[in-house]
C-alpha cells in the first residue's frame, strides 16, 4: 500500500492557501462570493495554460484538486489536449472532457436534494 503521507501536509497547506486567498478577497474587497469564485476559476485556468497547475497537483494532491480553481484548470487541460489531437475544433469538443464528473454530479445531486429536501431558512 503506497500512500504518500507527506502529500497530506502539502494538501492541507495548499488547500488552506486557496481558501485564505478567497477569504482575504471577500473581506478586503467588496466583491461578492460569485465574483471571487469566478476569479479563482479564471486564475486556475491561466495557471493551467502556463502548465503550472498540473505541477501544483503533483505536489499537493487534493490541496490543488479540491479548490474551484481546479475546475478552470481541468477545462483548459481538456481543451488543450483535444486541440493537440484535432486542431481548433478540439477546443470545442475537448472542453468538458475532464470536468464532466464535477458538472454532472453537481446537477444530479442538487436535483436529488431538491426532490427530497426543503429549505429550512
Amino acid at each position, binding site marked *: 500500500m503506497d*500512500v504518500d503521507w507527506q502529500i*497530506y501536509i502539502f*494538501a*492541507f497547506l*495548499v*488547500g*488552506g492557501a*486557496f*481558501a*485564505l486567498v*478567497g*477569504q*482575504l478577497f*471577500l*473581506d478586503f474587497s467588496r466583491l461578492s462570493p*460569485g465574483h471571487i*469564485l*469566478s476569479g479563482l*476559476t*479564471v486564475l*486556475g*485556468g491561466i495557471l*493551467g*495554460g502556463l502548465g503550472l497547475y498540473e505541477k501544483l497537483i503533483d505536489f499537493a*494532491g*487534493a*490541496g490543488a*484538486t*479540491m*479548490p*474551484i480553481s481546479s*475546475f*478552470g484548470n481541468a*477545462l*483548459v487541460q*481538456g481543451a*488543450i489536449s483535444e*486541440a*493537440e489531437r484535432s486542431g*481548433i475544433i478540439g*477546443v470545442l469538443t*475537448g*472542453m468538458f472532457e475532464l470536468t464532466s*464528473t*464535477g458538472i454532472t*454530479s*453537481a*446537477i444530479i*445531486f*442538487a*436535483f*436529488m*436534494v*431538491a426532490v*427530497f*429536501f*426543503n*429549505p*429550512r*431558512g
Partner: protein
Amino acid sequence: MVNKKKKSLNQRQKKYQKMAKKEEPKPAYLSNALRAFFFGGLVAIIGQIFTDFYRLTFDMDTQEAGNPAVATMIFLGAMLTGLGVFDKIARFAGAGVTVPVTGFANSVASAALEYKKEGFVFGVGSKMFTLAGSVITFGVVTAFIIGLIYAIFIF
C-alpha cells in the same frame, strides 16, 4: 440650477461617505482568515483521503481517482445543503468551505432547493445555476481562449 444642486449634493455625498466609513465595523479579518485557512486545508485532506481510497480500492492512477473524489465531495456539499447545515458551517468557516468544490455544490443545491416552489421546470431546472453559472461561463471562456492560443500558436 439643476447642475448647481447636483454639485452641492456630490459634496454632501462625499462628506457623508467619509463619515459612514468611520462608523462601519470591520470584519474580523484575522480570525476569518485563520478559520478559512484551517477549513480549506481540512477539506483538502478529506478530499485526499477519498482520492487515496479510490486509488487503492479500484486500482486507479492518481488522476483517475480524482474524479470520484471530486464527485464525493460534491455529494457531501449537496447533502449538507439539503440537511440545512452547510450555510451554518459556511457562516463560521467562510471561504474554507466555499472555495473548494463543496461550495460549488452548495451554490447549485441551494438554488435548486430554494426555487423548488416555482416548480421543477421554471424553478429547479432553470434556476439551479443562477449562482454557479458564472463560474462555468468564465471557466469556459478562459479555457476557450487558452485552447485557441495553443491550437494556433503552439501545436
